[in-house]
């Protein structure tokens, strides 16, 4: 069975740069803590917007971090599962996708202005250099499995590529649906059902 990484990240980028500023996210995340808007034991909000292309505004939870991430010059919602990952890679990916989608949808609903995510592409990061070095052979070993799992999540054919070929960087993949629109509510619903069944 494929090793579950110690930490797993899923990021959805925005379709276009919004008029809204990262500062506008702070009160939203603080409110999420008060109202338990997203899953997890929510702890605190950190402001890293002063760091160029950094993690932006981060809502820290015990099990995961939700960030309005500014990395790679592509603002987006980055969910990083840090603890209590399910014991299979498909389940870990489903969980991470589900929570990332929930947070992105909640942010779209609450953020001022025109915040829209591009759900056709997801960046998947394996934050575990012990088991996942960013090497071509690691990609070759996992490519088919990831394509299948993410394809199931989307309910559509996906293309999976490496984000970066520098072996020092995190092993990260970009999964893009081959064609068509994304039914985000449908995906969320399927993921919720599958997690409940599990």
């Amino acid at each position, binding site marked *: 069975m494929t090793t579950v990484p110690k930490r797993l990240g899923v990021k959805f980028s925005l379709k276009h740069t919004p008029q809204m500023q990262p500062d506008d996210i702070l009160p939203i995340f603080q409110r999420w803590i008060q109202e338990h808007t997203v899953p997890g*034991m929510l702890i605190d909000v950190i*402001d890293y917007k002063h760091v*160029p*292309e950094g993690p932006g505004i981060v809502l820290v939870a015990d099990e995961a971090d939700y960030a309005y991430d500014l990395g790679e010059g592509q603002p987006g919602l980055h969910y990083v599962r840090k603890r209590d990952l399910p014991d299979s890679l498909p389940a870990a990916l489903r969980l991470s996708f589900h929570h990332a989608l929930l947070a992105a949808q909640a942010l779209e609903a609450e953020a001022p202005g025109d915040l829209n995510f591009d759900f056709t592409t997801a960046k998947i990061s394996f*934050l575990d250099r012990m088991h996942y070095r960013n090497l071509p052979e690691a990609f070759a070993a996992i490519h088919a499995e990831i394509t299948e799992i993410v394809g199931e999540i989307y309910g559509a054919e996906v293309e999976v590529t490496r984000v970066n070929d520098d072996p*020092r960087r*995190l092993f990260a993949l970009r999964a893009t649906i081959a064609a068509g629109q994304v039914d985000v509510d449908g995906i969320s619903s399927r993921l919720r059902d599958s997690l409940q069944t599990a």
Partner: protein
Amino acid sequence: MTSWKEVLRDEIPAEMGNLIDIYEAQMELRKQGKLDDKVFAESRLRKGVYGQRYDNGQRHDGVRTRELTFPSADIVKGPDTLWDAPGMQRIKIPYGGLTARQLEVLSELADEYSGGILHITTRQDIQLHYVHIDDTPDLMRRLAAVGITTQEACGNSVRNITACSLAGVCHDEVFDVSPYADAMTQFLLGHDDVQDFGRKFKVAFSGCAGHACGLMKMHDLGLLAQTREIDGETVRGFTVFVGGGLGTVPHQAKVLADFVTEAQLLPLTQAVARVFARLGEKKNRNRARLKFLVAKLGIEEFRELVQEELKIVPPDERHTDYMEGLDDFVYRPAKAGMALNGAALPDGFGEWYRTNVYRQVQPGYSTITLHTPLGDFTAEQGFQLADIARRYVGDNIRLSVEQNFVLRWVADADLPAIYRDLQAIGLADAGAGAIVDITSCPGTDTCKLGIASSRGLTAELRTRLIEKINLLPDAVRDLKIKVSGCFNSCGQHHVADIGFFGNSRRSGNHKMPHFQVVLGGQWRQNAGSYGLAVGAVPAKCVPDVLEALTERYVAERAADETFQTWVKELGRKEIKAMLQPFTKLPSFEENPSYFSDWGDSRVYTIDDIGVGECAGEVVSLFSMEISRAESTHFEALLALDDGDYTTADHNAYKAMVLAARALVRTKFLDVGDDYNDIVHEFRSRFYDTELIYDRFAKGKFARYLFKRHDAAPARINEDYAHQIIDETQLFIENVHSAEQRINGVIVN
């Protein structure tokens, strides 16, 4: 499953690996409730593993205080400090010196363990925040594999030894202090004489008296490079300062010795440490720093005590061995020095060159400072900076006490190119060391003691100042601003032209975040004088207060009048009057924004303030040392479980010796590490005197140690390993009992 411990086994120096194994065993013992929480807390702190805000399981969400129900809620990693709560890992970078490879590994760790962010501290350390304690042993192993330790980064120990980041390239230094800072780091790390302090001990080196960079006058031990003519030869040495420090009550360091030679440097430091360990306050944490001992005794009596101690410091080859390596401490520039050659310069280069570039004493080379906002950078920037370093300067990377990166040995001809490369990674902002380059402690973001948001205020001031930096007169542009989240001075507000520290005031039924304004401190002259508090203003007024102060300074100053002189002449009364309009507090209904802190949308509260770990735990030397024996015994048990009986025997024997040593050191601090010496002293002091004797078993348990010490086992098998591990357990219990009988209560 493969582990970092296995993968890096051959890359980690044995002693570093051993200490990490012991720490990991202590973690396991703590989780099982077999190690006292205070003892574990101090052990953890001495590995640089620090608590963070909300780790007591409480957080005010702006409406009410919520309980944070962590999964291992019943396990603590120290008093009121929950196991699963995110914490901070401090990583010592002696004198701020980094290689490109080390920077890459630090970046990898930030990627995986701390959300991709690294933080440069005012002691030239790197800190990772929001780290789970379970990840810390692997994190330490990965650092150890590239020669970095977290040992004694926090707790009651010798903290990271700092030095001027221009050391070796400065026009005004007497000589390069870097190799001396390096030698002292090696000498003091884990030294027996620095294990029993009541509080932390900070050391700084400076190459000259006039600049700020070493800041040695605000240190427990400050060392200023000097030379003397002795017998017709120029001899290197140091003026030694002691008893400086900021904190709530700042003290200027006093001269302990006008001149000590290179050969006297380490023994004198050892003597100071021994006097501090013996006479320093241990119970009252607020008066346990060396500065209070020096103030209490007076510098003359303290000097006499150190001189007396010096006579009995045991001889040690390491006192002078390091001198042989001084000539080997050479810098290897990546490129030959070349003058800036008249090529077209990129936009913004001129201002960056003015504020961020220092022409080295070596012709054709410059040192550049990378203005690093709030001391934070991303793992991605770390990787790219490592590439830039390799391309232009090799391993000549340093961190500065102003929370910036410093790249040394840049060929002048490369300055435009390196500027472009730094621009591409967001590290080419002008203004290093200027008013926009504000120092800040973590404040309420992560510190348990924070009262107001020092980082939030710093970010706001920085944003506003950058917008108008080109309009500011030079006299204002070069001012220093430093911000602390409370009165404890971690942001060094006492030594800024304009300093702020967080406090709170009440307006109606609500608390309002405030900052006390501290004016006229001196950064230069190695933190030459401390500023004066002139009044508290609401946090939201601080930008306006800053503007009022600087505008009046520009309008009223005489030509070349410094800010310190202007403040002094203006007088406290007049300054107070100037601040008066800002001190009128609106009600919550009139202006609710005053009741939220910078960078935080919650209604302000001080309910989140916890108990700080800066002071470490008051734990006896015996408790610390016996816990190492217990952890080593635990390692023996693990080896037994793995069927590795040779390692089980090795660790059991070692655990017995460590336990004996812990007891011996309560009477004879200088016993050293040699097993023969330890067993001999143990026998003569505790066995022959029957002090170790159990009421019923008499000297039976001690004889387990003697038996194993006198003869290695002829055959090691499972039965034997079981037996020696059991005997070790009994011996450790015996030592515990004896210590309680002899010395009384162990843990305060």
